[in-house]
């Protein structure tokens, strides 16, 4: 009964995720990708970092590693899967979620606190929030601009698959509040099953009270129950 945090060569938020989940008393362990998913996996975190040095495209190599087959199967069985930052890029590259996270509009790596508007409060990842609530969570990425063709984005919006959008402190979706030029300020999306979610911001860096805002806790609480906690 454990949440598996998959470590690839170049993952660097795996331990942050472990500590954050530990703080929330969610049973979690780091799993080396070559070892495959443990039998008793009840949740999966694809953590942030620079898997395979972001060669080719961010997340491209990890998305095609054998363990992702297992993750896709687990996701299809309803196991909760959360991709954060590089994990979000891996999620999109692997087809777990739609669209792509690509080069920031600024063409720079950006590390800053941003505001997110919670677009739904009826998923496991957002049950701790109210719809329309504004939360503060950090980003740290060079390739976080959400890109998908306009027609498909409309369909995703119509299907309520957008989970978070970048906004200002008042919850307004402005261009200034969109740190990376993401289409329609999209910061996080749901997979075909709502138990799969990816987002560029880092909830695990907004969980421990010692290091600032703890607004990210609610997202990680999506694993409550998944871990048998």
């Amino acid at each position, binding site marked *: 009964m454990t949440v598996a945090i998959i470590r690839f060569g170049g993952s660097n938020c795996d331990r942050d995720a472990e500590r954050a989940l530990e703080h929330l008393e969610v049973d979690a362990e780091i799993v080396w990708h070559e070892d495959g998913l443990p039998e008793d996996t009840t949740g999966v975190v694809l953590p942030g970092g620079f898997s395979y040095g972001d060669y*080719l*495209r961010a997340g*491209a190599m990890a998305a*095609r590693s054998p363990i992702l087959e297992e993750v896709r199967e687990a996701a299809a069985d309803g196991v909760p899967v959360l991709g954060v930052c590089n994990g979000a890029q891996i999620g*999109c*590259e692997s087809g777990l979620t*739609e*669209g*792509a996270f*690509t*080069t*920031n*509009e*600024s*063409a720079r790596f950006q590390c800053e606190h941003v505001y997110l508007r919670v677009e739904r409060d009826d998923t496991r990842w957002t049950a701790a929030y109210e719809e329309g609530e504004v939360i503060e969570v950090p980003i740290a990425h060079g390739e976080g*601009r959400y*890109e*998908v*063709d306009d027609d498909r984005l409309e369909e995703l919006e119509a299907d309520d698959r957008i989970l978070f959008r970048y906004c200002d402190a008042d919850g307004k979706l402005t261009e200034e509040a969109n740190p990376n*030029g993401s289409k329609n300020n999209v910061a996080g999306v749901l997979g075909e099953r709502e138990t799969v979610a990816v987002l560029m911001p880092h909830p695990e860096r907004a969980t421990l009270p010692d290091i600032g805002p703890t607004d990210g806790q609610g997202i990680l609480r999506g694993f409550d129950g998944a871990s048998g906690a």
Partner: protein
Amino acid sequence: MTAYTATVTVRLKHGVLDPEAETTKQALERLGFALEGLRSADRFEIDLEAESADAARDRADEMAERLLANPTIHDYDVEVDER
């Protein structure tokens, strides 16, 4: 079997923002060059052996589909030459 080089060129779909190309364009302008626009692309030169040029093309095509290009944001083309 014949030796071929398949050249796969992967570029962003029309309309997808390319911040790196924009930055490069600006740098060229700072150097005093006059230019209207600039697009960047990735080019992969793949040496392989195949029964025919078509077979080589098919294999390179599949490589592009499965890894080299991301269909969400990329178009690609394949050229095959005997080596």
